[in-house]
Structure formats: C-alpha cells, structure tokens
C-alpha cells in the first residue's frame, strides 16, 4: 500500500519502494517490504506497529543510518543512497535531529555541552538567541551545567530533545523517546515535540508503540510485517488502541494458522 499523507505539502523525508532485508539464506528477515511513504513538512507524524514490525528500521533508513536493500530514500531533494559515509555523517549532523529511547547523552559532558554537541562537531557556534529559546522551551535553564548522571530520565530526554531542536534540522526523528519514562515525564517530552511543531514549525517523525504517545501526533502510520498497513489522521489514544487491537487479532489468527 502506498500512502501520500498530504499531497499539498512538500515532503521533508520520503521513502520510495523501500525494502530492507536482514541476514542471508534461510534466516533472511524482511524488515521493510516495498514501503513507499512521504512525511510532509511541519507535521508531527507517528509510526506505530507491533514490536518487530520494522518501525525502527524505517526510521534508520530515513536517517541514513541504515542502507536500504531496494528502493530510494530522500531527505528533501537529497537521495541518500548515492551519498558517501562522510556526506551521510554531515547530513545527520546538519539536517536531522535525533532522540533515542535511552543513552541519548554523553556522560562526560554537561547538559549544555550535549545540546550544542552537533554544532561543535561542525565547528560552529549555536545561535545564542535560538539556543536560549529552545532551552527555555524544554525548561532546563537551571540544569545546564549538570551532567547526565545528575539528571532524571525525563530531564535527560528533554536535553536530548533540545539537542535535536537547536540545530533547526529539516526533520526530528525520535525512536520511542518516552519508552523509558513514566507517564508524567513522557507527557512532558511529547508536549515538547508537539510545541516544536506548532510553534517552531518543526517536522517531527516519532516511532512509538504507545497509543497515548501517538495521540500527540497529527497523523499515525501503521506498520505490520514491514509493510504499511494503515494511516490515520488526527488520532486519539482510543482510536489508535482500537486499531492496534485489530492488528493483534490478525497476528493471533496468523499464529493459530501456524504461520
């Protein structure tokens, strides 16, 4: 199934007929199977699906962290398959912001140093006014000189979000950013991402398996067995949960048939 979420807006990132096969011979796993999808600018899109459905793989391929087996991936107009490792590195540094589930920060650096790390890797200074605004937005003014070990899990994730936003990337990619947080800390992080889209015009792509988290997004893409199974506009946690249950039934049915 191909999906064009909103044809009127240009895509920040796009996957065209992408397949990703892991392993060789008998043990091959088709993590992505002929996926075509675009993620329009200025929107908050969630990717959902059961564990092992290929969510992370999709994110990694879109970020140039993983190479596709077939098909093409675009960031804006740049086709990633033709880029060298050096170019991909620069692309990640300058055009993408990352938030991972855990271990987002370097333990030897302060929160502030972590936030400006991509800029300092590029040998640049961050725009101070923008930095202040982002830091204020994530509510970390008092914590900038602390090291990750001295911050709570939620604070650490907010530092990671600040790092992702401060470079004004074309797209922020987050892989289960709330997976390790309690619901309150998780809500803070999700609200932050929501604000980034609404107030800063940021594009956000978030992988999650939490229906509540998906409820913060403008739209949800459902993945199953490496294929795009469905798309939902203006999701609410309840609707998402219902949709997920349907997947589970299908999966259970498949299991019963001995697949």
């Amino acid at each position, binding site marked *: 199934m191909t999906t064009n979420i909103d044809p009127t807006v240009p895509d920040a990132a796009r996957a065209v007929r992408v397949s990703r096969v892991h392993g060789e011979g008998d043990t091959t796993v088709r993590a992505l199977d002929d996926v075509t999808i675009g993620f329009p600018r200025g929107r908050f899109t969630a990717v959902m699906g059961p564990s092992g459905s290929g969510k992370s793989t999709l994110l*990694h391929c879109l*970020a140039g*962290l*993983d190479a596709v087996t077939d098909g093409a991936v675009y960031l804006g107009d740049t086709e990633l398959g033709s880029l060298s*490792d*050096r170019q991909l*590195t*620069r692309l*990640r*540094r*300058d055009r993408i912001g*990352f938030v*991972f589930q855990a*271990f*987002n*920060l*370097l*333990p*030897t*650096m302060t929160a502030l*140093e972590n936030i400006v*790390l*991509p800029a*300092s*890797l*590029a*040998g640049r200074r961050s725009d101070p006014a923008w930095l202040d605004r982002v830091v204020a937005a994530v509510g970390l003014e008092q914590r900038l000189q602390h090291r990750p*070990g001295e911050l709570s899990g939620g604070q650490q994730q907010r530092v990671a979000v600040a*790092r992702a936003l401060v470079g004004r990337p074309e797209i922020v990619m987050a892989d289960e950013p709330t997976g390790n947080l309690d619901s309150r800390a998780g809500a803070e992080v999700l609200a932050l991402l929501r604000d980034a889209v609404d107030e800063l015009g940021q594009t956000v792509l978030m992988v999650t398996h939490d229906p509540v988290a998906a409820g913060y997004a403008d739209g949800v893409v459902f993945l199953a067995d490496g294929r795009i199974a469905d798309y939902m506009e203006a999701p609410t946690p309840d609707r998402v949960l219902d949709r997920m249950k349907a997947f589970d039934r299908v999966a259970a049915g498949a299991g019963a048939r001995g697949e």
Partner: protein
Amino acid sequence: MLIRLSLANLWARKRRLVGLSLAVLLGTAFLSGALVLADTMSSSIGGLIRDSGAGTDVVVRNATAVTDRPGSQRGGIDAALVDRVRAVPGVAAAEPVIQGYGQVVGKDGKALTGNGPRTAGNWVPDPALTPYRLATGRAPAKSDEVVIDRATAKQGHLVPGDRVTVLTPGPVPVTIVGVATFGDEDAFGGGSYTAFDLEGARRYVQRDPGKVGTIAVRAAAGTDQKELAGRIQRALPADTQALPGKAATGEAVDAVEDGFLKVFRTFLTVFAAIALVVAAFSINHTFSVVAAQRTREVALMRALGASRGQVLRQALIEALLIGVVASAAGLAAGLGLAAGLKELFATIGFTLPARGLVFKAATALTVLPVGILVTAFAALVPALRGSRVAPVTALRGAGAEQARLPRRRLVAGLALLAAGLGMGIVGGGMVGLAVAAPAVLAGVLLVAPAGIRAAGGPLTALLPRLRGAPGALARGNLLRSPRRTAGAATAMLLGITIVTVFAVFAASLKEGSGAETRKVVAGQLVIGGSSPAGWAGGGHSPELTRRTAQIPGVETVSGLRNATSLVDGQSRQMLAVDSARLDRLFNLDVTGGRVTALGPAGMAVSKSAAKDRGWVLGSTTEVTFPDGARQRFTVTGLYDRTAIVGDYLIDRTAWESHADAALDAATVLRLAPGVATGTVKAEVQRIAKDYGAPPVRDREGFVAARAEMLQTLVAVVYVLLALALLIALGGIANTLSLAAHERTRELGLLRAIGAARAQVRSALRWESTLVAVIGAAAGLVVGLFLGWVAIRAIGGANTGAALPFAIPSVQLAVLVVVGAVGGLVAGARPAARAARLPVLRSISAE
C-alpha cells in the same frame, strides 16, 4: 562448575580476554627473552672455549696467575721445557703455544679493531692441539708469513698474497699466506687471531727466544689425562704447572661464567625485573578496568544468589587461567625477543658471541610461575573490590565505577609523599634513597587520582578550544574517572621514572668523569686510551711513545701500561709509567711524598687504596709479577685523583723485565711552553701512521672520546629500558581499546548525531596521548628527584669527589616526546577500530 562458568565467561568476552592476556604476555616475554639470551651466551661462549681446548690433554703453563680475568695472559715458561715434556712417557705430541697481542693493520693504514681481544701467536701444526683450521692458503713457513682469521680477512678484504702490517705492538711487515676459521666460526667471538710460524711468534710476539707461552700436549692413546698431567708435573720445575685439558677448559669457562656472563646475566635480570614491575602495574590496571566493566554482571550474579566468595573465586580462576595461557605464550615470545635483541645489540655495536638460541627448562620453570603469580597478585585487588559489589547495583544500574575518591588514600598518599621527599632531601645517602624511592612512588600513585581531578581540568581546559569537539570529548573521558586515568598512566609513569633516573645517572657520570679526566690530565696531547677495546686490551707500541719524545717542542712523555699483578697476593690493576716527570703529565693532587722518580722499587698509591690497606708513606708491600717473580715495593707517594691512572703506579723500568707484551694503552705528552699544540699533534699523527694510526687527541678531544666509550653501554641500557616503555604503551593501547569497547554505545551515538569518523578517531587518540603525557610528565618529575637523590647518595658513598648533578635535557625532552608520540601511536589502533564501528550496531549494543 565455577571453572566452567569462568571459561564460558572468558570466551564470551574475547576482547577482554585478549586485553588481559596481552598485558601478561608483554611482561613475561621480556623475562623469558632475557633468560634465553643469557643461557645462549653462556652456552655459546662455553662451547667456543671447549672447542678450542678439545684435543688438548694437558696444558703446561706458568704457575703464577695475576688475574683470573678471561683471556688474560700468564707469564711465559722456559722454551727448553718443550723437549722435556716430549720425553715424558705417554706424551704423543707436545707443541709450544705462544699467544700475545697482535693487531692487523688494514690496507688503508688503519688498525682493524673489533669488540674482542686482538691476539697473535704461532701456527700449531697438530690439528688436535689447535681449534684453528685452514680455510684457504697454507700454513706459515717463514717468520714474516702469517695466517689470519676469516673475520679479520673479511673485515679488511684481505686474501692470501696480500702484504700488511701486524702490530705486536711494534709494526711487523708480513705476507698473508692463509685464512683460518675457529672451528667452523669465522673467529673466536669478536676477537682476532694472527698466526706466525714458531720462529716469527717467538721473535715478534713472545720477544724472548728462550720462552714460550704454554705447551699443549696430546696424550698417547689410552693414557689418562690426569695421570699424564701428574707425570709431566714431576718433570717440571716448581714455577710451572701441568693441568689436565678438561680442568683447563673448565677453569676458563668458569672464569667467563663468573666474570662477564655473571655481569651480563645480572644486568638482563635487573631489566627483566623492571619490565615485570611495569607489566604488573599494566596487568593490574587492565584487571581493574575489566572488573569495573563487569560490575553489573557481578551484581546480577550476586542478586541471583552467588556468594561473595564464589564471585571472588571465579575472578581468581579466570586470572589464573589467563596467567597460565599468557605466560606460556610469553615464554614462547621470549625466544623471538631474544633473537631480536641479539640483532639489535649487534646494530648498535655490541655484538654478542651467541650461536643459535638456547632454551633451558629452567627458563620455563622461572617464567611460568613468575607470570602466573604476578597475574594472580595483580588480579587480586580488583577481584576483591569486584566481589564487594552490592547486589542492588544490578537493579539500580548505577555507574560502573564509584566517582568519589576515598579520602583515606589521599591522606596516606600525601603522608608517604612528604616522608619520601623529606627523606630524599634531608636524609641523603643510600638509606635515604632506599626509603625515598618507594615512598615517593607509592605516594605519587596514591595521590594521582586526586591530582588528576584537581589539576587535570585546568590543565586541559585549552584542549576543547584548540581541538574542538574531539578535544572536549578526550578531556571529558580523561576526567570522567580520575582513578582509571591514573591507573592507565601508572605503567608509563614508572617506565619514565626509571629511564629518567638512568639518564640523569649516565649524564652525571659522564660529566663527572669528564671533569675528573680534564683535571687529572696535565699533558696537552693523548695518544690512544679511548678505543672501545679498552676492555679488550688494545694499545700501541712503546716505540711510538719513544719516538714522539724526540719531537721538538715535546717536554716530557709517558706511556701508560697495564701492569696487573698480585699486590700482597691480591689481583690489582697497576699502571707502569715513565715516572721521571709524572707531575708534569698528571695533576694527581699529591697528598704526601712524591710520585715522580719512583725508581725500581717505589710505588705511588691513591689515598683511598692506602687507607683500605692501612698503608702510610714508607710502608712496603710484596708484588708478584705475571712471570712469577716477587719484589718488595715501598710506598713513596700518596695522591688523591684516580681518574685515568687508577690506584697503583710503578715505574716502567720496574715492570718491563717481567712482562712479555710491551703495549702502551695510552701515551700522554706534555709540550714545552709556547709550543703550538696543533703543530706537534700533526707530527705525532704522522709518526703514528707507522703504528696503525692510533687516535691522537688534545685534552678536550680525549675527554670527549672517553665519554664516547660509555656510549655503547648507555645505548644498550636505553634499548632495554625502551622495552619497559613499550610495555607501558602496550598497556595504554590495551586499556584504551577496552575503554572504547565499553563505550561502544557512546561512540555510536556520537556518530549518529553527526560526528565524523575522523573526529571519533581524533578524540580517542587525544585521550591516549594525554594519558601518556600525564604519565611521562609525572615520571619525569619523580625521576629527576630520585635521580638527584641517587647522585647525592653515590657521591656520599664514595669518599671521592661528589658526582655533579647533570640534567640531560636533550635526552629528557626526547623521552617526553617519545612518550607522547608513543601514546598517539598506542591510541592509533583502538581509535581506528572505534571509528570504523558500524553506527547502527553500536547504538543498539548492550
């Protein structure tokens, strides 16, 4: 069950296994290499000596021995004894053997010098009585024909038919008629051999037609060596001795074993011990790092019900397994190292007479237990600390290492440091050194983590500004665990400390001996006296000395001749000089009596030697010369300065009649006032050309040349110490790659958010460079201090002049640079590996 778990554990963490094993292997390989090298030398030299005496059943020689140094000569014996020995029943053959000094001069007029004694003698026709075998040409048949050894022939590109000069030490023009091998070797060790016919050897080498050196006897079939020796002895006068061949070679082998080889073995063992200590710290640190990495694993095991004892035992079993396997590997690696060292020594001019490699069971029996024990001890503390991990750590997932530094350590460290410094500064002497060295080192090691925490930040503050993000990363990693950083730098610190102490020592010795030489030599020119053959008995003809005395402008001259004899029955090195105007040639700082005009029975003695023997002016002593003659000497003068001249001086005339070889080790010339040194020097050089062109130098040139003599030894020591530094650097590389492995996830994250490979690489390289620099800088400071204490201690121990404290700034600068570059190189591989890590796999690493 524990063993199976240990094995499984080791196997599952191959990277750590390799890291730990490497640390042990490096340390044991050096020990093994040192032992193999010493055994090889021992068996080679012993083999050479046994070969040379294999066919000789009885040796007849002078009964008097003035020294038991290998290769040194006894006085000659009556030539008429040869026929008397031949007449003894059971003697199949008896040949006179003459051996003395003989130096071949190359076609370019320069002496063909080398690392061993330069000998000449007679060609012994009976192949049973000589180890030499003709390779080409024929035996000498006239007194101006010679056979030379193949090594000398190769060195000088000489072939039969060539006409050359042999200095015995007077120049003898000869024709080479043959080239011989020593058994199947080119020559005996690093020495050379020139064989005249018997007539020629008597005339030029023995220089006394009535005498020969020794008599080599071959027994008739079925005659016992001992019995024959006894029979021959009965036919000999009392001052002559008949010794069974086996006893003679045994004596020679023992002399080498007790002399040179013992020194060599001790020397190597000391360096092996140094290397082992450095390695032990390296091993200990590696185990600490691994223990820290395993904290969570251990905690999980404890949470699942493993007892503290079980955890400890498991860690120790792992350490033992590593110790056994890695020590065995080190043992094998030592063979390669010994071969490499042999080559390396040869390239810096220290050729070892070693054939093949000898591997004795004793080497294995030393290296394996030592390696295993050192490993077990090095692992003990980290294992104990590891076993104290609380089970909740697994659940909390707390940081692997405690960041807090225990106050107790800091206090203890500071106390030790203060005590060591105090003892070194105030205490002085050998006792002061013995207390200061360990106290300062232990203090520094204990204080280091706190020091790094306190000073590391400000000192590296510029790095991020200079090197950007990689610099900041390196700095952060350096400071993240001061204790670990200190541990990583420890081996380096120790290594550099030792090298620095040695460098200070060598520089001070050099400067001290230079200053003393400058003070003692009053003449303006010196001939010879500086060849590396100083210990191989080199020198030049006294004829050269006599002729230079005739040069206009030369006021007075003396040759210096080694006159080693028994003084009151003990072997002592005396010098025989022309004592008439000795005060014009040397500033001996005479404290009593006179040192000039010693005459046939006068002796000048250094103050310290006189004190040792309880002599005063006018005391008498009995001297036994190499020819067995005894004579009483009276102490006529006492002096203070012993550089160059040593402790005992007698006149040339008192010595000459008792010595076979007339050889001046050096000649000192005093010029008349107002005479230009350069003019006389040129004239001396012109004459010296007839005598193999020994070097002619002015006083400063002589001082410099004497200093050069130390250079080979110093170079050998540096090579050995460099190995200790290599071990330290290997340790740094090792722990860095372990650290990189542990930080896989961080590195992956860095790459994911846009760090280029080059930046990751650069960060890790900086880290290892900084660790090395920290270790090197601290080692330099500690080494300078301990070097200073040591120099003062030695100055105090010798009643003689205190050694000046010299800082070899160039060498030390090179040392620190080498340390830093070494750190960079050590970091290269782990850094390159870390930079190559696949990003995706790294971020999802556990």
